[in-house]
């Protein structure tokens, strides 16, 4: 579980532990990560702190795990910039976290045979790739690129019984959304969604389903969880 120290990753780690899973939790904030892992139901959980944009951190994570039955790629970062003002730095930062890290971590897990037969991979993307709000061009692009790559991962790994899917959340009440408070009004944005604000636990439930045998015929899909935002007609 990457990005397990907060938001959707944290909520998913808690839910999966409640359902009997043993969690390998990854995140950049060591103190917060250890706090999350200490609070998980059950035994045998692991906290591996590190920045997954760093190849060495990815390597040590892969070294420290046994063959995984499921993998949730929830680490992400959002920043806004109109295309007219986009810089190379903005592009590199957003892609490093949202695209390169999950794709290269997948590569390392596959190369080292750290995915069990029948494993389920779930990648957290964003509804931004479908609804294209102002100033999200690079963020949406990174998430759309990830969605496309996940389809290929799924078809290549089908022979091993491995499934790969995306969940594509709308505005979810997480620290990442709070971080955008300075440049937009998240509550105003969330207000566009007919059903209201989404909580991290709601997304976690969908991820848990995609990890479980209950979804065993589901692969190469992207599940939109957006409170009805993407078909916005009022």
């Amino acid at each position: 579980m990457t990005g397990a120290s907060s938001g959707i990753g944290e909520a998913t780690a808690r839910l999966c532990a409640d359902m009997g899973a043993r969690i390998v939790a990854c995140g950049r904030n060591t103190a917060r990560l250890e706090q999350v892992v200490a609070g998980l139901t059950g035994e045998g959980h692991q906290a591996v702190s590190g920045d997954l944009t760093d190849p060495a951190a990815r390597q040590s994570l892969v070294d420290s795990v046994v063959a995984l039955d499921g993998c949730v790629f929830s680490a992400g970062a959002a920043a806004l910039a109109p295309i007219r003002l986009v810089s190379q730095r903005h592009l590199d930062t957003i892609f490093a976290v949202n695209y390169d890290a999950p794709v290269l971590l997948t590569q390392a897990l596959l190369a080292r045979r750290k995915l069990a037969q029948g494993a389920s991979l779930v990648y957290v993307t964003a509804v931004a790739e479908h609804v294209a709000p102002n100033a999200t061009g690079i963020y949406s692009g990174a998430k759309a690129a990830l969605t496309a790559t996940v389809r290929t991962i799924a078809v290549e790994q089908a022979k091993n019984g491995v499934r790969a899917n995306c969940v594509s959340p709308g505005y979810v009440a997480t620290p990442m959304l709070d971080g955008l408070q300075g440049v937009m009004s998240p509550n105003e944005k969330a207000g566009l969604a007919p059903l209201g604000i989404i909580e991290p636990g709601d997304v976690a439930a969908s991820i848990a389903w995609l990890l479980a045998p209950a979804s065993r015929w589901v692969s190469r899909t992207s599940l939109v969880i957006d409170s009805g935002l993407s078909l916005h007609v009022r």
Partner: protein
Amino acid sequence: MKAAMDTLEQFVEKFKNAVDFQDEVQLTGDTNLKTLAEWDSLAALGVIIMFDMEYDKAIAGKDLAGCQLVSDVYKLIG
């Protein structure tokens, strides 16, 4: 090289560019932001990014919300 020593006039030019006004505006330090038809959230975001790129300074929407005049925004350079 950051332009930390910009005059108000130089700043006004950069502000105009950041907002990307479609209609020509006469802008001075005394211009009230509320009188600018094109001053919206995307314009504000442009100014936030301009501060980061030109002055290496992180400002937030709430900083701009506290500004009345263009000169108040200039003062955010510090």
